[in-house]
């Protein structure tokens, strides 16, 4: 008996040992191996919808054909989910090698030393920063470091229904004022039919930023604080809420219910403030003709507008900074990439790409609009860390006001409290 057991015992042990070894092997397998045969794999992720993903995959195919030794692994998600995932990956030291970014996040992640300073790669000749269109070449620089390279430029605009504005005899033009805009909106809403003059954009941080800039202020100050007072915000939200109650703006419940469409592409309103490249999506969602108009002014000249842009950034922890730089270089300079992407991420960043792409349809509208506002573009202030959280709170809290769930005064207090936490001031 004891003889049999002494044989069986070790066998049991051996089997268990084998199981553990197999597990260890499995774990090692998940870790990914070395680059074999000189091929380097870089991970690239971005936010956006399916249409963007299809275009980007085509551009990656172009890149891989041109750089046979680099393979690109892709991953994408919707905007908010993208950042949750990115935060998780980055916290684990596993951020994608190269990823879509925007001006709003340069400070936030730059301060955490998560972004690759691309200046070294520019000096090494792997990335060219020449040939960028005006206002874009310096867009990714923060405190002397190059943290992002623009892949497209966007400017804020009014997406509107020209037929509805024509009916009330108003033609939006450069230098028009808020009073003219409000009057047109009121007339459209008062006219027969279900159409409201405008969406309620009281919670859109970028619009309020422009309004503040027209009045010599800004949403964020250079020292990373809010650039306006509680009284300022009470006035802004109070005016929007009053217009909403008076029936000039789309009621909040309706605009919530029409989601994921926007009020203007859901044919609820005749005008909505947003980034000019959004007209691509809106035009696809409605049969109504839409056009782009400049933002109204306070004094008849200053709109406060600036070019924002989507960018590509590298991860500071990437093992392949050269390949990342080559990838970014190809994506911003290659004319074929420009032809493929069109204005999906905004107007193309370099002259080579801008000239290669012949815009048609809504893209032609965007090109014309961008050209029309070139003269009024001001420099952009990079947002402080936490600006994205403040932006989301601004939108959410005003929506509660518009829905009648809270008063303007309480909402302003709430926003200042949340913004203080977010900006860490």
């Amino acid at each position, binding site marked *: *008996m*004891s003889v049999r*057991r*002494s044989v*069986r*015992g*070790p066998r*049991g*042990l051996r*089997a*268990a*040992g084998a*199981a*553990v070894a197999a*597990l260890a092997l499995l774990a090692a397998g998940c870790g990914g191996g070395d680059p074999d045969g000189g091929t380097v794999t870089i991970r690239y992720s971005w936010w956006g919808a399916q249409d963007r993903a299809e275009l980007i995959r085509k551009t990656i195919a172009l890149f891989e054909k041109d750089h046979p030794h680099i393979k690109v692994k892709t991953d994408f998600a*919707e*905007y*908010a989910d993208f*950042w*949750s995932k990115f*935060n*998780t990956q*980055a*916290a684990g030291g596993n951020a994608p090698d190269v990823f879509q970014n925007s001006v709003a996040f340069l400070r936030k992640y730059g301060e*955490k030393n*998560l972004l690759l300073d691309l200046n070294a790669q520019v000096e090494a000749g792997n990335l060219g920063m020449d040939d960028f269109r005006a206002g874009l070449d310096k867009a990714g620089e923060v405190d002397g470091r190059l943290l992002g390279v623009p892949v497209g430029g966007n400017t804020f605009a009014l997406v509107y229904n020209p037929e509805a504005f024509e009916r009330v005899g108003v033609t939006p033009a450069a230098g028009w004022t808020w009073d003219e805009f409000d009057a047109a909106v009121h007339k459209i809403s008062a006219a027969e039919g279900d159409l409201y003059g405008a969406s309620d954009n009281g919670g859109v941080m970028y619009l309020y930023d422009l309004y503040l800039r027209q009045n010599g202020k800004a949403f964020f100050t250079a020292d990373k604080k809010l650039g306006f007072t509680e009284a300022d915000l009470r006035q802004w939200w109070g005016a929007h809420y009053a217009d909403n109650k008076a029936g000039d703006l789309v009621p*909040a*419940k*309706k605009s*919530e*219910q*029409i*989601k*994921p469409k926007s009020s203007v592409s859901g044919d609820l309103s005749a005008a909505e403030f947003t980034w000019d490249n959004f007209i691509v999506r809106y035009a696809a969602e409605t049969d109504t003709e839409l056009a782009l108009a400049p933002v109204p002014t306070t004094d008849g000249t200053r709109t406060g507008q600036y070019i924002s842009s989507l960018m590509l950034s590298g991860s500071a922890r990437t093992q392949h900074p050269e390949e990342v730089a080559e990838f970014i270089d190809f994506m911003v300079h290659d004319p074929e990439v420009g032809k493929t992407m069109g204005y999906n991420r905004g107007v193309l960043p370099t002259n080579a790409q801008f000239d290669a792409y012949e815009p048609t349809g809504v893209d032609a509208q965007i090109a014309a609009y961008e050209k029309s506002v070139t003269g009024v573009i001001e420099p952009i202030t990079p947002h402080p860390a936490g600006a994205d*959280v403040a932006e*989301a709170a601004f*939108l*959410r809290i005003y*929506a*509660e006001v518009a*829905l009648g*769930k809270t008063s303007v005064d309480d909402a302003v207090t*709430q926003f200042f409290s949340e913004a203080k*936490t*977010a900006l860490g001031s």
Partner: protein
Amino acid sequence: MTRTQMTRPDVVERPRTPHRRTPEGPRAAGRRRETLAGYLFLTPWCVGVLLLTLGPMLVSLYLAFTDYNLFDTPRWIGLRNFRDMFADDRWWHSVRVTLEYVLVGTPLKLAAALGVALLLVRPRRGQGFYRSAFYAPSLIGASVSIGIVWRSVFQDDAVVDRAMRFVGWDAGGWVGDPDWSLPTLVTLTVWQFGAPMVIFLAGLKQVPRELYEAAEVDGAGVWRRFRSITLPMISPVLFFNLLLELIHSFQVFTSAVVLGGSGGGAGGPADSLLVYTWYLYEQGFRNLRMGYASAMAWMLMLGIGLLTAVLFRTQRGWVHYEEGTDAR
């Protein structure tokens, strides 16, 4: 194979006492080897528990007392996260939303489960089919896809909206209406009553038929029989289901996020779907306040633990365990 190997030593060595004085004997050595083998076989599970459950839990307990933004070193701040929580209006709001969801959804779900189980307990044709049909929703319930289906059913101009308009009630989409979005979420959980139903069915089958027959002879009606026989007899099952569903509902996440996320940022219109776990996630992964999120997680655990303890306390008053069985 493994099992016989592992149990055999005990069987063989029934008269243990004589061997105790020679622990280093060959048999003891063999046993130790086998014990070791047993632990080795357990290793994958142990590693999983230690690395994926226990470890993170302890770390999160530590983080609950720190200011941690995922990237910089955590900074010890004592109880400040908890103090902030009580001063945070949105935290209170998320507690309210979650309680409303749990306190309305769970009783309705259990009532539906018990009701359908009572209908299905009697043998009849097609019984198997009906059971599967009612059970099916709880198989797919927690998935993202069903959340998407639910959203599109209750959206503006979708099936429900049109049906309601047909009967003269133009409410628009329920999902986008801050007053109706939570009821929409509740209907989703109630619809998934299949799992508790199956447990109720098992419980109902245990009730001795003689009790009903005797009651019928005494002239007890349907309601009386239900109140005086069925309910007390299945009270252990009811208790089990109640406990399970309560704990489960407090942790609602996926369905609320999918329903509330139609506009990009979940939480629903006017935060009406801001369930506790979502607010926790938002604070941790979007606002990068991982210390605060950890504190919230432990607060939730405390809350659920407290509720469970209270429920266990009350069971003496209403849960009847049959004597002589080992139901306890």
